[in-house]
Structures are given as C-alpha cells and as structure tokens.
C-alpha cells in the first residue's frame, strides 16, 4: 500500500496545507492506488503506517525552509536536518522528522518517504490558507499525485 499523509492543525492557516490536500484527494476520489490519510495533530500516528506492506509514503507538511511563501521542495528525510527548537518537541506538538528518527531507532520498517515541504506564509489562527498557498494549491496537488506514482 502507498499513502499520502497530511499533518497539521486545520485552524492555523498554512499549517493545514497537508490536511487540505489529503482532504481534497479523498473528497474528489483521486485516491486511486493509494490511501490519503489525515493524521491531524498527532504525529505519532505516522508510526502506524510504517508496516512491512507499506511501499511508499508521501508526507505533506508546512516546512520553514527560509524560502518565499508558497515555494515548495520535494525531499527525503535524510536530505535535511531539523532546526526546530527541540526543547519544545513533544508527541503532541512535534517534528515529524524526529518521529521518523524515533521509528528507525525502534526498528520500525520505515518505507521510502518523500516529503512535500511547502513554505508557509501565515501560521496565525485562521481557518483558511493564505492567498499565496491557495493560489498554488493545484500545483501542490499535481506534484503530490505525480510523486506517489513514482517508484522509491
């Protein structure tokens, strides 16, 4: 099985980009050959998709890469280092990279993972995406749908 997984807080503007993309996929029946999963605020739920039968995961998250808002990058977890303040790292309010590292440390069968990181423009309490991300929503969708079909 292949999974597209979104993580974030729906009510914090661009933090919700991953959730909105997987929601769009599910609502429009685009999940052919893969499942689209919303793990919302609980990053630990990612662990439950690290199974022998999981071929691939594409994760979508807002990522501060010091790029202009709306820019995106596709990368592997091993391509980056987390610079988030680790003192504040918890299972609730976490860093998905640490969850992946945690899983590897425990011998979970971590499948090939690609992260679609999208530079947020607004992380304030708001029930909608910033106009910049909203305008590029279809582009993100096409990237993620293309990526899930690729091998590795």
């Amino acid at each position: 099985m292949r999974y597209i997984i979104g993580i974030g807080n729906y009510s914090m503007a661009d933090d919700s980009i991953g959730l909105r993309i997987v929601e769009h996929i599910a609502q429009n029946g685009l999940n052919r050959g893969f499942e689209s999963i919303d793990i919302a605020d609980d990053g630990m739920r990612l662990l439950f998709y690290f199974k022998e039968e999981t071929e691939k995961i594409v994760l979508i998250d807002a990522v501060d890469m010091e790029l202009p808002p709306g820019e995106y990058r596709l990368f592997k977890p091993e391509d980056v280092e987390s610079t988030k303040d680790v003192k504040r790292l918890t299972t609730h309010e976490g860093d998905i990279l640490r969850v992946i590292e945690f899983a590897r440390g425990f011998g979970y069968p971590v499948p090939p993972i690609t992260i679609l990181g999208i530079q947020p423009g607004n992380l304030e309490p708001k029930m909608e995406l910033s106009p910049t991300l909203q305008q590029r929503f279809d582009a993100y969708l096409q990237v993620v749908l293309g990526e899930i079909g690729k091998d590795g």
Partner: protein
Amino acid sequence: MTQNMSINVHHLTRVEGHGNIVVDVKNGKIEKMQWQVPEAPRFFEAMVRGRHYSEVARVTSRICGICSIGHTLASVKATENALGIRISPQTFKLRTLIKHAENFDSHVLHIYFLVAPDLFNVPSVFPLVPTHTEVVVRALRMKRLGHEWGSLLGGRTTHPNRVVPGGFTEYPTEEELKTLRQRLVDLQPDLDATVQTVLSVADKLPSFERPTEYMALSSDKEYALYDGSIQTVMPDGTKQRWPVADYKSCTNEYVVPQSTAKYTKNKMASYMAGALARFNNNYDLLNPEAKKLAEALKFKPLCFNPYMNSVAQLVEVVHSVKDSVRLLDEVLGTGYKPEDLTKPTKFARGQGAVEVPRGILFHEYGYDKNGMCTGGNCIIPTNQNHANIQLDLEALVPKLLAARKDEKAIELGLEMLVRAYDPCISCSTHYLKVEFKR
C-alpha cells in the same frame, strides 16, 4: 520564603498549543500569578451556519485533531436531538465503544508521553528510549491498539467518517469485532505492566489539594462517557444533576483579561472537568477491575489533588478496556447486523454532550425546515478548566514558596500541574523547520 522571583514559562511544553505561566514575587509578596491562554477564536459556530445537517459533524470534528471522535459524537448527538432521531441500542453501544477507543488512545498518550517524562526526570519521552525501552515499546503498542480500535469503528481515527446522524454509514464485520475483543483481552499483561510503571513513580506526584467543584456527565446505568446528564459533585460530596439542555446555565461562560479563551463557572468560582471529575462523580459505576486498581493505588473519591488526574486516566484506561469487552459481548450476542440510518422526524434546536479525554464537551445546533443549520455553539473542556487551573496555581505558589522550594522546582511544579489537566489549546502548529544538508 523566597523574596524575589520571576517565572515566565512562555509556551508550556508537552501540552497541545500555547499556554503561558507567569509568576512575579517581590519582597515575598506574589504580585502576579497568571495562567495565560493566547488563543484566537476560530468561529466554528459561524462555519456551520447554512450547512446541511449531514455536513455539520464533518466540520466541527476539525475543532480538535486529538479529540475528533468526541467532537463528532457530540455534534451528531446534538443534531439527532434537534432532528428527533432516536438511535438503536446497537448504535448506542458501538458509539460507546468508539468513545472508549478515543479515551484509551489519548490517555495512553498523556500518561506515557506527556506526564511520564516529569516523573522520570527527563524533558521528553525521547531520552527514555535507551533507558526504558520496554516502557516506550509498550506505550507504542498500546497506542497502536487505540488507533486501530477507533479506526475500525469510525472508518478512521482522525475525523471519523462512519459516524453520522442516525447511526453508522458502514460497519465492521462480526469477525473484526471478535478480533478486537480478543486483542482487548490479550492486553492484560500490558495493563498490568502499565500499573506497575505508574506505581513505581507514583510517589513523585506532588501532594497538593484544593477542594473544588467537579463536573462530568453522569448516568444511573453506567460510568458515563457517551451519554448522561450534567452532574457536579461539591467538596462536601453533595451532587446535583441538570439536563444537557441546561448546559449554558451550568457553564456560564465569561471573559478574563489575561486570556482570549472563554472561562466558565457553575456553583463555585471554578470547576474541574476531565478524568478526575468523572472519577469523583461516577466512581461507583467503574468496572470492578478499574475499581480494584484504584483501591490498590489508595485512590478514592473525593480526591482534591489535581495531579491525580493522570492516575484517574490510568483507572479509565482499565475501565475502557474491560467495559469494551462487555459491550462487544453484548453486541455480538444480540444479532449484530448493519442497520439503516434513522431518519429525522423534525427540524428544531438540540444539544449533545459527551465526555472527551479532557472532560465534558457540549455542542448545540439549530436547523430550519430544510435541515440547514441556523447556528451552533460548542463549549470545550480545556476552556472549562482554565479558571480551575488559575485558582490551583494561586493556591499552589504560596505553598511552594513557604516550603522554600527554589525557582526551578517551583517552575516544574507549576508546569506539572498544568500538564496534569492535559490541556488542548487550539493554536498548536506542527510545521517543520529544516536546513538542507550540503
């Protein structure tokens, strides 16, 4: 007593969202003691206006990614109340089962990943991986069960899509329910080990007491999680019940300067919601195995120590497992089969309440003759606890100062107190911050 102290815990860790603890002591006098919640309103109530009744729960389940099952259930119950829908006994039991799944999952997360680090003197769960590997592996195993238990009944754990007004859109097979039952029975060694882990560190829970009012759903039939009336128990043990329809007169929302979240109160200046409030209100209806655990821990109602909320969660973990086995036996023993959705018989206004991990949750909606929502209201348990947290902190700080605790110990004691409530504040974000390797 310490003469001068300034504590400013900005964005308390190991809670969901942002809360600040601010303490100023000058010349031995407490000049400021505030639990601050800088949360912005999210206008869910406005977002449901104009939506069809079949869509409302899908929107309001977004209020919380951790308690989305509870928000779905409270929303669906309020809608069913407004629409004159009476659910079947099987639906009632299956919904109680999914409620148990959410409380189990969230309590395991809170006890093992958010509270345990304080008791093991580490900043987060990650340092426990090499030193207490078996404990972390067990926690993950239990959390996986909670996740799969909720997903089996709800279609998915986060924002369940099978729970709708009138019943369920899809059902697990009989075989799947039997497998779940067996997994719950087989969990016993993990439950026993969890109790031993908690017992080994229980003496590190501070012994602080402040009598207050405790509010929870209550029922004569069962330890209320999915259904019941509003009940409070006062420090002298007197109890009073109200119908859920009267929730506004029991919560009395108000605003305070230091917080953007609304506070609530009932008969006293504040009340507590959550596992300890349920334990204090409904102890007699706990499963016997859960009661046995409470007795072994010398934990009995009325307990006025808010730090014991985490222990009450442990008791509820056992209760949820045992009560779910009972429910599964009843469901499977009475001709389990998929049922058609029950149809609306009217369109009016209705209220619904359930117990989510952090306490009693209220939803209310009105519908016009076409089934379109005319307005809604939600009162979440974390907000109901803010006033009680503030008053606990006000009572605790003088005691810690009088005990000549140093600033670091006082800060930890205050943080642990807030974490015991397991607050879930909506402003948490989960974005990554990365640098690309060259």
